[in-house]
């Protein structure tokens, strides 16, 4: 891990790593707007631009958690506003089912979030990301990959 990255560790300096999938037509533009409007918000989100929130395969979310994300955020268009008519509804349905899977796997609800943010709502990018970072910070690191090593080490010691 590069040294200038915030690290997930049990030290006092825990900085949550949030993987954020932003829809090209709305939330990504809203983040752009937040930037050009010089709004300040938590730098913890790694934004990945996708063409539609409906493009976010649940595998992307699980892969992010498995590889060190402390939280995953999906930003899509408001209901009725999808550039592809139905993509955000598909995202919504997947989100609700995936949330149940994550819960069963022991991942707290606050670590996975879906928000509708239009291109005009730069301030909403700021407030939702800030809010999520604080909630995940309170939960502490997820450390999924490390946990795997821990389990194996426990086995070796057994």
């Amino acid at each position, binding site marked *: 891990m590069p040294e200038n990255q915030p690290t997930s560790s049990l030290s006092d300096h825990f900085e949550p790593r949030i993987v954020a999938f932003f829809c090209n037509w709305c939330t990504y533009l809203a983040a752009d707007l937040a930037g050009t409007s010089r709004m300040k918000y938590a730098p913890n989100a790694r934004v990945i631009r996708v063409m539609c929130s409906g493009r976010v395969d649940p*595998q992307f979310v699980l*892969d992010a*958690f498995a590889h060190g994300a402390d939280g995953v955020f999906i930003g899509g268009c408001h209901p009725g506003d999808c550039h592809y008519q139905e993509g955000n509804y*598909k995202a919504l*349905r997947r989100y609700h089912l*995936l949330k149940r*899977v994550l819960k069963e*796997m*022991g991942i707290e609800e606050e670590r996975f979030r879906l928000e509708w943010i239009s291109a005009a709502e730069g301030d909403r990018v700021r407030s939702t990301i800030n809010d999520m970072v604080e909630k995940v910070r309170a939960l502490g690191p997820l450390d999924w990959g490390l946990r795997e090593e821990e389990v194996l080490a*426990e086995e070796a010691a057994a």
Partner: protein
Amino acid sequence: MLDKPKIAFYWCASCGGCEEAIVDLAENILDISAAVDIVFWPVAMDFKRRDVEARVDASIQITFLNGAIRTTEQEEMAWLLRAKSQLLVALGSCSHLGGIPGLANLFDRHEILRAAYLESPSTVNPERTLPRTKYRDNGHSVELPVLESSVRSLDQVVDVDYYLPGCPPTPRMFLTAVQTLLGNEIPPKGSVLAPDRALCEECPRKDSKPEALSLDGFKRPHQVLIDEETCLLAQGLLCLGPATRGGCEALCVQGNMPCSGCCGPTSRVKDQGAKMLSSLAALISSKDADEIVRLLATVPDPVGSFYRYCLPSSLLRRRRSPAKAEAVSAGGAR
């Protein structure tokens, strides 16, 4: 005369169904036993572990190992058979993906031991004895294998050459695999010995699958009279055909039961459960969040439904144990 190729079979955390599938070859097993020497098969023949240990490394041409890896003994056997074999084939869902025993990854080892030895209604254990790995009596020391904290697929423990999927693989799939591996042109290492296409492609009900599906929730097989001709998904049954590899000739669907996903994902999918969840959730007709939640409640057990055979090989592999930190600080009572 040249020696016949040596073949071995072994089982780890499994139910024995894969062994049944081999016996189900019926008279074809005579052709196999005429073509090869079986040098190890604890279920059916009287060979011991020391017979395998005595062999020269790589002197077994093919070992078919079924079952997931859960105990230290199974792990040792996997290493031993890997060393003695030229080709190691993961036979069946458990070995390939973790299988049904892999659902134990939703619990930790302590919970499992508690449930099995203390809490189950049929257990009588007034002294609350739990299995111990070491026991001394009259100067004799007895050891039992350790129950590892997670179930693993075979390739999470040793290098695997081929996978033969299915719960169990059909006798025909097994026969084809043996013929292929004993032939001159063997497939590239790491291949899954089944067609790389979704089950729907070979489903006899394929033509009745609508172009666009929209569902008001799902039904379980005991809740409906299932039509024998129509696509099961179209009837609202949770059929995993779209996200499952074919090769089994849709035997379950032919028996009027939905596919439960035993052959695992195709090569283009990393996490079969997530892919199926993605595909099925998108079919829900509603656009209202509350109604979506209500309709999705007709899938009562998402992990058990979508990850029935593949939890240990999924992206997350096992449930996170929230009690972990406390267990460590309590001195790791084991």
